[in-house]
């Protein structure tokens, strides 16, 4: 048993790559051991900017010996055959053994493979690991780079230490040979250090000002920064990302406290923090009252001869220069009103097929205005000319203006935030400034969800426009890539809507965006040169939009719906129930959809619900087999869908009155074509429950025979339940609809108990199948039970 030390010395490895490099080194090394049949008691990996190291404990001295045997020809076989057998197995004839196999004397070759020395295994493993190392970016260097086949590493590899026990593991790769020697700290130690074994490695390096254990350096940065702050009477703003990065940039970290001119504190705190963190990798501090302090903490890589005075002075100067740039931007940006900045958005391409950011902003403004004017939207209803509407339009028109400011050009992460500050400074109302600042929210999972009406309107309009626009030009996310962050936009839409329980029909919005963006797309396509046209996929690509465009909005709704399912699954809502409700016709009012799903979930978990489901399945199976007569494939659709641009009022629940014009038409004078009038029917019937007849009118007036008792009871129950279910659904009282449906449970059970559907009398058979179809249709008013599992 012996411990093994491997150190790969190189020029400075980027800090951000070190954690993965450690994991890769461990994984590749363990795989090499495993292939040789070796196992270490423990593997530890370390990194510094200049080295990757690995210590494997208790490696056996050699791999296990193996003995294999091969059966050969029988004794007395021709010499040719026996010699061939010997050759194949690398033995001589006198080494063969003769054994009895079912009464025949047969030759056997016994091949003893002795164990291999572990050092030999390692000598081969090290170059193999280096060659296979998956750096995110790698390079060639030096004399060897005359060939492009030369060794690649993240930065030039300069040395290998490989010691098993006390012995050198000799290996070589591309001119770099293994040895006992390495280097200490770049400035604190001169010359080479000789390492004895894995046991003294870390301590020898420590003596030469190198802390090889990254977690030790991280602890020093973490605790040292806190201490440097508290020594200055301040509190550190902790930042674990900075801890790791600074530990990855130093072999001997020394946190130092510096300061800057308090005059810079006029600049927004976020700007100071970002300048310090991103550009300089400094921590920032707060004073006792929680206010940002004019101080920072940098992490040096040396114990300077003057205690760090010169280093602090130098860093202070650099930060001051950076902050004066930021202050300059801050002041310069404010000299131009946001309205003027916004004009420059017409020079920024949003997407080549979709026009400029200014075009997008116009669409967002119209959508946002429409959202707040929508009656029954659940958050606020503005009327033309009221304050809210004015604020929404203003905020939407200005929400992207900060993209062309100097500050956001320098710090793209500050988009929104800077716009908010500039709006405030310009004297815009708080609601407008907040909406500009927060309209990108929610971004991450823990991010706060906007609730202020102006922000909600702009945030939703922006996200829905993005989704609708990219669906219009068929730039869809795939499993592995979502370059326009449409998933994030969809999750944002869902969270904003559900958080404030907004009653927003998504379909007309997405259809309106689709229409506008499709026309932008056509305009773009007609301006292409022939070559560009070909490069974009030619006639095949462009003509395919004829089929795509009509369904783009539906696909966008499906996309949002899929995100909703994922999101609700985490909240414990059954996805099959969401499917069952959505299948009725792409319910696009997420609040109503979930209310219905929740009622359904409560219902199917009761005995009534469970039994009704069983009855439903039985009825559906029979109907499927018999293909019910008179079944019209047109699905029944419940729930209302508001339609932009249509003045016709819907007859169902939901938004009863619509604004006069579509968002696409506001201010433009010409309507961007109402997508569809009246209640929407999905064009794609395959998504809807098939085989449902339209609800037959009450009673079975045409019955040519006297129904059996159970049959009559079911007819009566349906007659009674159907109007109740319909009324309850229209009133969005979904629990009540479930209760009404529950009244069908006993009759359907009894029906199956007592009545033969498949009667020899064709009239009876047909009438009973029709009755089952009616039952199924009644259930489908609530949900497509065929989608429910169990």
């Amino acid at each position: 048993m012996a411990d093994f030390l491997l150190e790969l010395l190189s020029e400075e490895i980027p800090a951000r790559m070190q954690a993965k490099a450690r994991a890769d080194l461990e994984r590749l090394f363990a795989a090499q051991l495993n292939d040789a049949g070796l196992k270490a008691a423990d593997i530890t990996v370390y990194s510094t900017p200049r080295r990757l190291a690995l210590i494997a404990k208790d490696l056996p001295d050699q791999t296990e010996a193996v003995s294999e045997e091969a059966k050969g020809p029988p004794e007395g076989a021709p010499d040719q055959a026996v010699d061939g057998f010997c050759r194949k197995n690398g033995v001589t004839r006198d080494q063969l053994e003769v054994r009895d196999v079912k009464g025949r004397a047969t030759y056997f070759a016994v091949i003893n493979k002795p164990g291999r020395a572990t050092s030999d295994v390692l000598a081969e493993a090290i170059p193999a690991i280096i060659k296979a190392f998956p750096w995110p970016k790698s390079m060639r260097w030096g004399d060897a780079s005359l060939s492009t086949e030369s060794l690649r590493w993240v930065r030039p590899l300069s040395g290998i230490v490989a010691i098993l026990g006390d012995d050198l593991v000799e290996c070589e790769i591309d001119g770099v040979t293994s040895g006992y020697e390495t280097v200490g700290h770049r400035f604190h130690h001169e010359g080479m250090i000789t390492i004895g074994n894995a046991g003294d490695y870390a301590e020898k390096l420590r003596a030469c000002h190198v802390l090889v254990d990254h977690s030790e350096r991280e602890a020093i940065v973490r605790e040292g920064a806190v201490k440097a702050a508290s020594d200055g009477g301040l509190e550190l703003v902790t930042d674990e990302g900075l801890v790791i990065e600074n530990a990855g940039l130093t072999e001997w970290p020394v946190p130092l406290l510096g300061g800057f001119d308090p005059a810079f504190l006029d600049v927004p705190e976020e700007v100071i923090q970002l300048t310090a963190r991103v550009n300089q990798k400094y921590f920032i501090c707060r004073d006792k009252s929680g206010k940002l302090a004019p101080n920072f903490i940098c992490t040096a890589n040396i114990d300077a001869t003057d205690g760090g005075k010169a280093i602090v002075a130098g860093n202070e100067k650099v930060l001051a220069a950076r902050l004066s740039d930021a202050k300059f931007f801050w002041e310069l940006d404010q000299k131009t009103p946001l309205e003027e900045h916004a004009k420059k958005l017409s020079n920024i391409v949003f997407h080549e097929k979709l026009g400029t950011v200014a075009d997008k902003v116009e669409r967002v403004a119209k959508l946002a205005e429409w959202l707040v004017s929508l009656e029954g939207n659940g958050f606020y209803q503005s009327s033309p000319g009221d304050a809210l509407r004015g604020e929404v339009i203003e905020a939407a028109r200005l929400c992207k203006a900060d993209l062309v400011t100097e500050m956001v050009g320098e710090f793209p992460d500050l988009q929104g935030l800077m716009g908010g500050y500039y709006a405030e400074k310009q004297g815009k109302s708080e609601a407008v400034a907040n909406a500009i600042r927060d309209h990108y929210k929610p971004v991450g999972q823990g991010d706060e969800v906007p609730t202020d009406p102006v922000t909600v309107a702009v945030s939703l309009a922006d996200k829905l426009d993005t989704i609708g626009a990219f669906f219009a030009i068929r730039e869809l996310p795939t499993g592995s890539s979502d370059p326009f962050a449409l998933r994030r936009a969809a999750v944002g839409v869902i969270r904003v809507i559900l958080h404030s329980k907004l009653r927003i029909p998504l379909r007309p919005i997405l259809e309106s965006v689709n229409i506008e963006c499709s026309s932008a797309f056509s305009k773009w396509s007609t301006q292409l040169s022939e070559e560009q046209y070909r490069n974009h996929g030619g006639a095949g690509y462009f003509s395919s939009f004829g089929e795509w465009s009509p369904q783009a909005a539906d696909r966008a709704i499906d996309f949002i719906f899929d995100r909703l399912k994922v999101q609700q699954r985490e909240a414990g809502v059954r996805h099959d129930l969401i499917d069952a409700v959505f299948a009725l016709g792409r319910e696009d009012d997420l609040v109503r959809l979930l209310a219905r799903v929740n009622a359904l979930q409560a219902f199917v978990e009761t005995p009534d619900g469970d039994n009704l489901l069983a009855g439903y399945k039985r009825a559906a199976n029979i109907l499927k087999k018999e293909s019910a007569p008179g079944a019209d494939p047109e699905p029944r659709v419940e729930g209302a869908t508001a339609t932009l641009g249509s003045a016709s009022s819907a007859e169902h629940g939901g938004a009863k009155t619509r604004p006069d014009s579509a968002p696409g038409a506001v201010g433009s004078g010409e309507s961007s074509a109402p997508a569809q009038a009246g209640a929407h029917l999905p064009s794609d019937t395959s998504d809807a429950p098939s085989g449902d007849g339209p609800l037959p009118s009450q009673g079975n007036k045409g019955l040519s025979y006297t129904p059996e008792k159970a049959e009559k009871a079911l007819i009566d129950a349906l007659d009674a339940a159907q109007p109740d279910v319909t009324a309850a659904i229209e009133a969005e009282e979904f629990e009540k609809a479930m209760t009404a449906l529950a009244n069908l449970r006993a009759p359907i059970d009894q029906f199956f108990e007592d009545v033969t559907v498949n009667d020899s009398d064709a009239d009876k058979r047909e009438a009973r199948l029709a009755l089952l179809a009616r039952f199924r249709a009644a259930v489908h008013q609530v949900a497509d039970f065929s989608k429910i599992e169990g």
Partner: protein
Amino acid sequence: MTLSGAFAKASAKLVALAKKAITLTDQKPLSFQQIILKLHDYWSDQGCAILQPYDMEMGAGTFHTATTLRALGPDPWNAAFVQPCRRPTDGRYGENPNRLQHYYQYQVILKPSPPDIQQLYLDSLTAIGIDPMLHDIRFVEDDWESPTLGAWGLGWEVWCDGMEVTQFTYFQQMGGFDCKPVAGELTYGLERLAMYIQGVDSIYDLDYNGNGVSYGDIFLDNEKQMSEWNFEVANTETLFDLFKKATAECENCLEAKLPIPAYEQAIKASHVFNLLQARGVISVQERASYMGQVRDLAKGSCEAYMVKNGWDA
């Protein structure tokens, strides 16, 4: 053990230089021109050819043929030179203490990249008075890419007490061709370095010659006038015309199989494009197309250079 030998030698040199540096810090800091002279001395001692600046307008020292074209092909090449750089959009009419439309880079190219290149570089800092035991010198990841030159490399920005003083790059590709072998490129920002060494807050306050002449005495008027010309006066029709002519002439040279003159025209087109940018007459949409044209010229010149020298890609 050649490696350890190299390190020991380098370290001994470092100590000697550090001692020298300490004595230097007691004296008046180096003037702007002394910094250049020290670097010339130092890199000359390392075997570099000390070149003079290229006599054309260019955006960075990397455009000098001694970098771009010499990075191609198998021949060893070690050179150092000062290159004036022009970036018209960076002009601030002499009002910003940190930005100029005309400034100097000190450029070193070592091909193939020597194994001790980092130490050589650190020793050059010591030579101009930066004590590595007093100041925090760090190699921070910064990869370099020039779409215009079809070039990229990996390396660092070198920090001195948090300030970027040098760009350090191992060229991997130039003009779209793999570098065989790889060259190491060091680009020192001379004004920045001098501001640091002299402890001044404005470029214009730099001590230029150690004898009463400041950087501002020499360049302030230049910055004011050139900024005005770059942003406001330059005749854009003439510039558009120049761009076209340079493009045509580059193609003419390429047809005549003259890569060096072709490359000069590419540099010219690049600078004219930068001027057009400063005049604000190139829209975002057109920008990509202009950059594409310049890139094609530069890559075409590199390709012709390879062919002329009989080198395989």
